[in-house]
Structure formats: C-alpha cells, structure tokens
C-alpha cells in the first residue's frame, strides 16, 4: 500500500505577496565559470514564500545555470544558498528534492509507454514491485483534486498532448512533496490555450501555498502571472522588479540593456504580381489521414501572408508540400507561373524558393557541422563552393566568415559547430543561408520559436527587408502577435483548409481567435 507523503504543515495559504522576515530562498553572490565563459558573475536571487517569482533574461544570461545550481546539477564556484534561513549545500538533485525543491524541465522527462500514474511515481515507487496500479492511480487522483490539475491517471504518456504531459511533470514534483517549484521555460512547447490553462494551475499552486520560480523570456507571461521579477543579463543581476509596478518596456530594457527599436512602419503594397499560387491543394499527413483538404492561397511579390492557426491544422504539411517534401494528392502549386506541384526540393529551390523550417535543429541545420558548412547546405555542388565535384574549402571558409558577420552570428566565427550556438544564432545561420540567395519566395515556419527578444527583433527586421526587396513571404506562426505585426494579409487555417483570409487591418485578435477555433460564421459578423 502506498501511503501519501505528508505535506509540510503551513500556517496560511498566502495569495497576497507578503514579505516575511526570512525569505524562503536566498542565493547570494553565486559565481560559476565554464572554461572561458563566466556564466554567473555574482548573482543574487531572493524568493519569498508563496510568491510566483519570474527569472527572466535573454538566452545565455545565466537563468538556467543558476537554477541548475539550485537543483544541484552544477556546483557554484562561489556564493551561498540559504533555504528557510539555513545555509545549505546542495550536491545533487537528491539534496534539492529532500529540501523540497522540484524542477519541471523544459524537455519533459517522461517514459512514453507508461501511464500518467506510473510516471508520477517513477523513481519513488514505495513497496517495490509489483506496483499496485489501482492504489497509485488513486493516490495521483487525490493529488490532482487537491491542486486542480486534471489528467487521466491511467492514460499513456504517448497518447496525450504536450500540455497534459507538462501537468504530469508538475504532478511528479508535487508527489515528491516539493514546496518550491522551478518551471524552466514552461510555455515554450504549449499552444496559447494550453498556456492559459497552465496559468490557472500556476495560480492554484500559489493559492495552495507553493512557491514558484518561472524561468522565461516571454514578457507577456511574466506580466500575466508573476509577483516579482529578477532580471539577469550576461551573468549579472540587471534588475529586481515588482510586477505590479513595472511594464513590458522596462523589463525588456533591463533584459537587453537598451531600448528596443519599433518595427519599421510598413509601406502599403500595390497590386503586384502573384509569386505563389496554390489551388485546391490536398495532401495526407504522416499517418495517412487527410491533412490538407483543398487549400487556396496566393502570395504576391513584396507581400507577407501570415498563416494563423492552432498547431496541427495542416500548416506544417502546407509548407512541406510547397517545398516538395510531401507528395501532393490533388491540386496545383505554381511559383512565378511555373507548375512545381510535383517538383522535388532541389527543383523547387532552383525556382527561387527559400525555406526556413519550423524545427531548425532537426530540419534547418546539420548540428554537428560547422557554421560555414551549414551555410552551403544545398549549394555544396555548385560554384563557387565546388568545382567538378570537389569542394572549394577556401571559398566555403571565406563566405562562411562573411555571412557570419553579415548576419550577426555570435561568435562571428564560421568554424564553430552550429549545435553549440544559441537558438537565436542558429536561426540566424538558417536565415542567412536562405536570404543570401535573394529568393523570390520565402516559406518560413515558426521563425522566432524559442528565440529571445533581441533575436526575434533581428529576424523580423530581416523579413521586412526581404519584403521591401519584393520577395513574397509565407509566414506560418503560432504566435498571433508576430503574425499581426508582420503580415499584410492573414490566412487562418482550420482542419486542413484556409477558412478565411483577412487584411491585416481587419484581423482583430478576437476574430482570428474565433476563426482559429473553427467558428467561421461567428467571425464574419
């Protein structure tokens, strides 16, 4: 029989931010160096009991390193950690867990064929085998009721969406009796709806007296759900803020260290020639079910057409069909008037189509290759990078360095392995490779997923530049803000069809939301 682990008694479930005499967690002067890199240079973090504390900063600011130190994965070079006023030494996750610290990782650590309940108790199975399935499911259900987290305990992980998998991660941590929960980029993989649901859970956890640290760089989420904010920049404290008394601009400035540029005002496009024409396009998903059910779409020169929609409504398949990566079962695709419906990627690209795929690590880049080698991916058999089938190493190295500089890849060294770069710099490599060919059409999916503010700003500027040059852009994104900020027209996808195409001016968030949810009639009023 598995007995519930007792939660520690607590006086009041504080929903209001009070400032107790002793903070729950006090990290002071934390320093950590990795080789040449001073990742943390004397960072302080003070978290009060019962608050939601945002730890924000750009990629590489040291957020994750700091939390890994707290969780015992790294050992600090200097600094002290006090927990409930007592100085502690955390030498491994076991110590952290024993103190009541739990971590919800960005990449879920779940066993796909096991059930929700089995995953929750994994590593903490009391009584040994055989597991009493019914008992652990009951135990998990009780935990769910207490914290208002709903997910069927007997469901298999592989059958449930990411949003629910994350709840299982949260349950795992709660099951071990954690009082301080660290969320590492919790919304990175979630749909907007799932984000809202997560916030409900997060507030419920606070109401139950838990303390939360949210690692993120999304300002909207910081403002929506947290109480206090610690901003890191380049391994140092950049600001300590109270959420109620601050705003997005102030946080962003602290993160980036300067004011952010406004996106350039967009010039109105005239009636220009269509570059991409798609008619009655149909295609199957990987599982053989219909993914596209008659898509009609036009992108003109010098125009950005945004494709909005909840993930999984055919957006990825649409991009793959245009490139020639997925067989088209019905309909036609033309680029500049030429039929490319059945063309393989090489021929499609030869027509001036550039592609920035949604998963840059798997589809966009060969991670173990250098920056220079990634720049020539797809051009490896042409001059100036190859002559009679033999690579021109000098030309590749020279252009690699030039592109790395032009596209602000950091470090600006084309000999670096791409897999070691940050997400933003990886995206610059992909974008640089695609844009440097002066394409007529760019198909770009989730261009800023996982990127920090500065990198996002950079990508957006480059896209607007391309648009001004007369390039047509098909922008697929699950970030509504991004689509609305960049697009001239917005097409909404739902269940494999474009249910509406709106001028950017008419596309209010409400209307887009209704269309994305499949309420085409409601949205037309």
């Amino acid at each position, binding site marked *: 029989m598995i007995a519930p682990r007792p939660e520690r008694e607590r006086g009041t479930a504080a929903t209001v931010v009070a400032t107790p005499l002793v903070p729950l967690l006090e990290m002071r002067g934390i320093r950590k160096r*990795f*080789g040449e890199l001073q990742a943390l240079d004397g960072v302080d973090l003070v978290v009060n009991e019962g608050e939601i504390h945002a730890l924000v900063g750009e990629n590489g600011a040291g957020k994750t390193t700091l939390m*890994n130190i707290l969780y015992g*994965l*790294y050992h600090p070079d200097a600094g002290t950690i006090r927990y409930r006023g007592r100085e502690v030494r955390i030498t491994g996750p076991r110590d952290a867990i024993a103190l009541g610290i739990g971590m919800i990782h960005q990449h879920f650590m779940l066993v796909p064929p096991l059930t929700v309940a089995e995953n929750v108790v994994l590593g903490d199975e009391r009584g040994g085998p055989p597991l009493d399935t019914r008992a652990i499911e009951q135990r998990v259900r009780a935990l769910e009721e207490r914290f208002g987290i709903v997910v069927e305990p007997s469901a298999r992980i592989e059958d449930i969406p990411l949003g629910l998998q994350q709840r299982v991660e949260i349950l795992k941590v709660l099951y071990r009796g954690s009082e301080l929960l660290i969320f590492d980029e919790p919304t990175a993989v979630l749909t907007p709806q799932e984000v809202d649901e997560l916030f409900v859970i997060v507030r419920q956890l606070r109401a139950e007296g838990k303390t939360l640290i949210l690692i993120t760089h999304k300002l909207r989420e910081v403002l929506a759900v947290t109480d206090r904010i610690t901003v890191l920049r380049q391994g140092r404290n950049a600001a300590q803020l109270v959420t109620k008394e601050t705003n997005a601009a102030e946080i962003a400035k602290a993160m980036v260290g300067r004011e952010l540029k406004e996106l350039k005002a967009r010039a109105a496009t005239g009636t220009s020639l269509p570059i991409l024409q798609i008619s009655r396009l149909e295609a199957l998903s990987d599982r053989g079910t219909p993914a596209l059910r008659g898509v009609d779409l036009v992108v003109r020169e010098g125009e950005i057409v945004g494709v909005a929609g909840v993930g999984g409504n055919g957006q990825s398949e649409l991009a793959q069909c245009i*490139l020639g*990566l997925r067989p088209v079962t019905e309909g036609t695709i033309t680029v500049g008037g030429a039929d490319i419906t059945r063309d*393989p*990627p*090489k021929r499609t*690209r030869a027509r001036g189509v550039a*592609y920035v*795929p949604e998963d840059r690590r*798997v*589809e*966009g*880049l*060969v*991670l*173990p*290759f250098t920056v220079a*080698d990634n720049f*020539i*991916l*797809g051009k*490896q*058999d042409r001059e100036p*990078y*190859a002559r009679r*089938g*033999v*690579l021109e*190493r000098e030309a590749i190295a020279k252009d690699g360095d030039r592109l790395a500089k032009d596209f602000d890849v950091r470090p600006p060294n084309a000999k670096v392995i791409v897999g070691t770069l940050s997400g933003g710099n990886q995206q610059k490599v992909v974008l640089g490779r695609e844009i440097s060919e002066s394409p007529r059409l760019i198909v770009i999916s989730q261009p800023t997923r996982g990127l920090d503010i500065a990198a996002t700003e950079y990508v957006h500027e480059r896209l607007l530049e391309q648009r001004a040059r007369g390039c047509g852009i098909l922008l697929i994104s699950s970030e509504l803000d991004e689509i609305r900020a960049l697009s001239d027209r917005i097409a909404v996808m739902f269940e494999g069809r474009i249910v509406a195409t709106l001028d950017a001016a008419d596309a209010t968030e409400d209307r887009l939301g209704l269309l994305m949810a499949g309420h085409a009639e409601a949205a037309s009023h």
Partner: protein
Amino acid sequence: MPIVSVLAALLAGAVLILISGSNPIRGYAALLRGAFGSPYNITETLVIAVPLTLAGISVAVAFRTGLFNIGAQGQLLVGALAAGWTGAQFPELPGILLLPLTLVSAVLAGGAWGAIAGWLKAARGVNEVITTIMQNYTVVFVMHWLLQNGPMTAPNAAGTPASSPIGAGAILPIIIPNEIVPLSRLHAGVVLAIAAVVVFWFLMWRTSLGYELRAVGLGARAAAQAGIDPRRRMVLVMFIAGGFAGLAGMIQVSGLFHRVFDGFSAGFGFDAIAVALLGKNSPVGITLAAVLFAAFARGGTIMQADAGVSSHLVEVVEATVLLVIAAEAIVRALAVRRGTPAEALA
C-alpha cells in the same frame, strides 16, 4: 579515448590470463613479439591489416551516412568471387589489362551487392541491418554451390572446394624481396589499401558527394529539405561501401590465395565493424585500429604457441575493447542527460 579503452581491455585480458593459470606478462610479450617482433612478423601483421582496413572503410563510409553495414563480409566474398572468376577466365591477358579488370570487376560486384541493401532501404524502408545480414548468408551458400561441383569449381580439385587459380596477370606482386625478408607474403595490396584510405578521406571531406553523405548521416531531414535526397544517397553509399569491401576480397584473391575457396576470409567483415568503431570512422583511426586488430590476430597465434595462452583469449581482449568503447559511449550519453557540462568530460 580509444587508447584508454584498449589499455583497459588489455588489463582485463591480463586478469583472464592469470585466472587461466598463465603468466600475463609472458603472454603479452609473446603477443607483441608475434605481431611486431621481427620483419617477417611485421609483414604478416600487415597482410592481415590490409583487408581489415578496407572492410573497415566499407563499414565507416556507410556509418557516416547513417547506415549500419553489417554486410561487409558478404560484399567482400562477392568481390573475391568476381576477382577469382575474372582472374581465372582470362589467364592469357597481360597483367596491365587483367589486374585492373580483376579489380574493377570485384569493386563493381561488391558494390552492386551492397547497393541492393541500399535500394531496399530507400524504396521499401527495409532496415539495412537485416538485409545485409541475410545477404551475408546468401553469399556463403551461393559460394558453397559455386565451389562444390558448381560452375567455378576447379577441375580435379582435392580437399577444400576451391576455384581454378587466377592467371599470372591477375596476381598482386610481393613487394618485399625474399632477400630482405625471407618468405614474406606482403603484397602490393598494402599500396591499394593506403590508396583506399586516401580515397576515403578525399571522398568524404573534399567532395560535394562526401559532404552530402555526411549531411544525410548527421541530419537526414535537414539534407532532404535542402535538396539532397537521402534515399538516392543511401543506394549510392551502399554501392561505395560494397565496392571497398569488394576490393578487400579482390586483394585476398590476387595478393594472397590466388584462388577462391570455401570458408575464404571468414570474419574480416565482422571484425571490420569493430575496426570502424574503434577508429571512430576516420581514415587514420581505421588504419590504426586495423593494424591493432591484425596484431591481435597475428600475435595471438604466437602467444598460444610460445606462452601456452589460448588464442581465444585474444578474442576476449578484442571483445572487451569493444565493450569498453560501448560503455564509454553510454557513460557519455548518461552524463549529457544528467546535464554535466561537456567540458567536465573533456
């Protein structure tokens, strides 16, 4: 570190030699002497290293493209059969014609045999591990048929079923004169093996095709969207892999045995997998690993004769090397999962 792996395995082997009641120092001394102790021993070690290097390249070139070629053994035998047939079929041709003809036929035959597995994977999604293993068996039985009362069986052959000897023009000359190293069997195949290592390096790191193969191996989807069709490259690379293994077979026929017989060059194709792994699929690494495994094989026989240590123990040491390499990979993977920074492992 491969060197650490080798040392750890030798240490484990020493413990086993102790347990078996012999003196490990004497055993290893005999092994070392057998492998490198005299000019003759060195040439004998190199004779074994030549096919191991080529078969190792065969495995590595596929590895680099993300395919696991278990079929080097079968491809080697097909190459040997092709070389044996060609060499025996045109015995009158001069060496300047017959030797290249023998070589090309072996490379093409081994390549075509390898390409079957590549094609099945590309067109039908059949796992190349399974097809190449099955192909290995197929070759062995086809060989039985060809050599025992089959079309290639030598007339009046006694003892082991074998083919007719190849013509003089198909023979790779001995490159070390008898006056310098008496009885040396070291043939010009060693030159071909060195050339093959250079070709392998040039192909993979200096040509567009090599770039494409590595891109497919390290990021098939990224390659595909950039216009490099992974399926075509799979067929091609299995042809190339088969070609290298086929060349190994040809060298065994033309340089060493001058005919094909049943049970010919057993096991080289499998040791080649270990050679490629230990050599980290790199040209220099494979060459060194092939020499090491050849030294084990050659030295093992001497160790048995001189120190009374069973030569099977050498196989245990070889297997332990692999185990340690595999363990190293596992430890590394675990460390990454636990979030230990890579620098700490370096």
